[in-house]
């Protein structure tokens, strides 16, 4: 069933094309496409689980001549998360966009975003990664600009400029790699690349380009305005998925291709930037006046946590401890993906019914939108890292890995970050449960609120309680961590 890898990319692409022609049925087309793609992603995960990593050389040309698609534990799990979030956001978006003009613009671009995400996660070729990164960037920018107000356009232009710069820097690295090694295939490169000047500079360039795309401090400045001014379902996809896949590529390159090139110093540098991101992002989130801006800064902080894992993974010797750290990183990425998307979808509901998303004026929301407030609380639990959320386990392993690797200094950073997260989550809940008449009447909009609820449940309960299966899955079926 290698076909599932193709279908998960081809179906959204077909859907996008059809929704351009038949814009009146676009939302139905989108829902069907995404559900089918979700089914395909489940099949892929099952296949990896049963048979191990899948390698599919398109066209069966000899290595390097064609492009190959790969799915292993890491990419298939991220693919599954991506499709779940997209499907939930698709249901929500159907209700969010009431203007038929906006809907006609939204759906083709949204499905293109899905194509880009899936193609990126399954890519096994360096230049193909570049093309998928560009498709991802352009569709994300186009979706951000849909809000069609001054803030959104400014944010979109900045996002585009920075994104193009990041892609070009990445491409420069690809050029150098091809110069030295004559191939673009990730599997072939993982055997060829050694520590010498060319690969080192290429490593630096590609890392820099990906850091821009993953919004690691201090290259994060484009993210808050973009994620805050985009339409709510778009913000959910941006925070949960678009920045994550950049981190995924970086991780894949570091561990697979550049494992002999990277130095503990470079990992430590990224870890330090991650630590600063945690504190700076959480602090800014606490200061934010608007719900979506707060969520965007929270994303900056959560990305920081992911990067703190890097120096630990590099420092730990190969074995179960390193595997555990790796899986903890994946767990945190997944949990954040679900939690942040649930948060943004709920913020969208609040914004629609209160007319604004200013935190200080959210009084009475708990009474009026009980389900949505509950979802915010749930995702807040996952953002803070309280048990039984996946983040709790992730942070737990982060702390224990820090001690085991002798890098205890990350622990106070994690502690401060968690305290600040508690503060900003409870700030919202405090206002929401407080007195006030923000909405006026009790609302229960199932179609809009249930997707967010499901996502939040994933983050807080399912991932936390089901993490042991995840541990085994990743440990057994990752292509790397095997020397």
């Amino acid at each position, binding site marked *: 069933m290698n076909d599932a890898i193709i279908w998960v990319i081809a179906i959204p692409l077909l859907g996008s*094309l059809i929704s351009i022609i038949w814009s009146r049925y676009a939302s139905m087309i989108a829902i069907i496409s995404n559900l089918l793609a979700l089914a395909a992603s489940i099949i892929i995960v099952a296949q990896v689980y049963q048979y191990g990593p899948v390698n599919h050389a*398109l066209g*069966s040309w000899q290595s390097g001549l064609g492009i190959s698609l790969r799915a292993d534990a890491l990419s298939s799990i991220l693919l599954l998360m991506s499709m779940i979030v997209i499907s939930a956001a698709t249901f929500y978006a159907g209700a969010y966009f009431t203007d038929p003009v906006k809907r006609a613009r939204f759906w083709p671009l949204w499905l293109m975003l899905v*194509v880009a995400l899936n193609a990126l996660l399954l890519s096994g070729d360096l230049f193909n990664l570049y093309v998928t990164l560009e498709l991802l960037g352009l569709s994300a*920018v186009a979706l951000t*600009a849909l809000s069609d107000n001054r803030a959104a356009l400014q944010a979109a232009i900045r996002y585009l400029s920075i994104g193009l710069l990041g892609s070009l820097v990445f491409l420069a690295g690809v050029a150098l790699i091809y*110069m030295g090694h004559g191939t673009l295939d990730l599997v072939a490169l993982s055997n060829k690349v050694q520590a010498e000047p*060319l690969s080192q500079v290429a490593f630096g360039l590609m890392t820099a380009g990906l850091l821009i795309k993953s919004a690691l401090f201090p290259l994060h400045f484009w993210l808050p305005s973009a994620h805050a001014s985009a339409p709510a379902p778009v913000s959910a996809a941006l925070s949960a998925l678009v920045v994550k896949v950049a981190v995924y590529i970086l991780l894949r390159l570091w561990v697979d291709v550049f494992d002999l090139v990277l130095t503990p110093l470079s990992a430590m540098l990224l870890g330090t930037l991650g630590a600063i991101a945690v504190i700076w992002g959480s602090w800014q989130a606490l200061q934010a006046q608007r719900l979506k801006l707060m969520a965007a800064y929270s994303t900056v902080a959560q990305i920081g946590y992911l990067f703190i894992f890097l120096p630990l993974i590099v420092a730990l010797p190969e074995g179960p401890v390193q595997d555990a750290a790796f899986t903890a990183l994946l767990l945190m990425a997944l949990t954040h993906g679900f939690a942040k998307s649930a948060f943004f979808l709920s913020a969208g509901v609040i914004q629609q019914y209160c007319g604004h998303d200013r935190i200080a004026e959210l009084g009475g929301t708990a009474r009026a939108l009980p389900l949505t407030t509950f979802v915010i609380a749930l995702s807040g639990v996952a953002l803070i890292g309280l048990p039984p959320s996946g983040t709790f386990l992730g942070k737990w392993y982060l702390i224990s890995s820090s001690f085991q690797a002798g890098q205890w200094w990350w622990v106070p950073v994690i502690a401060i970050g968690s305290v600040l997260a508690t503060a900003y989550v409870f700030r919202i809940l405090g206002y929401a449960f407080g007195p006030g008449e923000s909405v006026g009447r009790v609302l229960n909009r199932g179609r809009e609120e249930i997707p967010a609820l499901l996502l939040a449940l994933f983050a807080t309960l399912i991932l936390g309680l089901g993490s042991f299966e995840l541990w085994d899955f990743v440990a057994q079926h990752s292509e790397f961590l095997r020397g």
Partner: protein
Amino acid sequence: MIELLWSIFDITLVLLLLALAWTTCSTQDVKRAVTLFIAMGLLLAIVWARLKAPDLALAEAVIGAGISGALLLSAIKDYPSNMVSHRSTLIEGIINSLTLVLTILMSWAVWHGLNMSDGVRLSEPVISQLPVSGVSNPVTAVLLNYRAYDTLLELAVVLTAVLTVLTLNEKRVDYEFSSPLLQGMTRWLVPLLVVTSGYLLWVGAHAPGGAFQAGAMLAAAMILLQLAYPSRRQEFNNSLLKILLVIGIFTFLLVGLWMMSLNDDFLAFTPAWAGTLILIIETAATVSIATALTLAYLGGRPRGWEDTNRTSRSIAENGGAG
């Protein structure tokens, strides 16, 4: 002797290129920057030809200098000249030194890389598999057979960009000035461009050329028409435009999926049919690219683009007036 002449030629080209790039990037006058940029594009085309990349030379001239140039020139139409655009001196100093360091590092890497490279290139596998690929132009073989998946995604990129351009703005008020000279020239040029575009599409299988160059040339012909006859606004059927935009990727996907059902591998062309299949895909792609680039230049929503199917049909029936 010949060696020396070549070296002088190369060094001159490189110096000229760097000089053009430097002036393009450091000038503050927008109009001058765009003009220099177009000149640099043309010089790049010469460089590609020098480096034995004729497909690229064609593409750069038509797409990089031609279409990009047209886009940029119509964007600066109403720009105020001479807006200062620099940052504070301290940040400028930091940026200057950082980029200088990066340039030096990359040069060092290139120096090492060229020495250490084991010379393994992909040209041998490309050539050896050429008979099976269905075409004899190696670049076309790479683009539309070995790495066809990349080309598919690239068409998706073009579509995404055009969709955004189409829906973002109102229809742009373009240059309203035209002259009999331009119109007369256009009457000769446009048919020539259309025929050349068809030729490029056909010949791409065994000589430099291909779908992208052909599509861009077709778009250039359409843009020229628009420039020469600005008051004659043709209202196209929006449904037709949408189909034209989409047909490239659609054909590509369908062929790929059909091959998957036959040969159990996406975009794996049966060698016997490969040539024909590639031609079909390229024709559809040319149409889509031409439509996309033309619409991207025209910029803005065509009338009736965002109405439902029913409404757009009725507008087309009533005919468009200027």
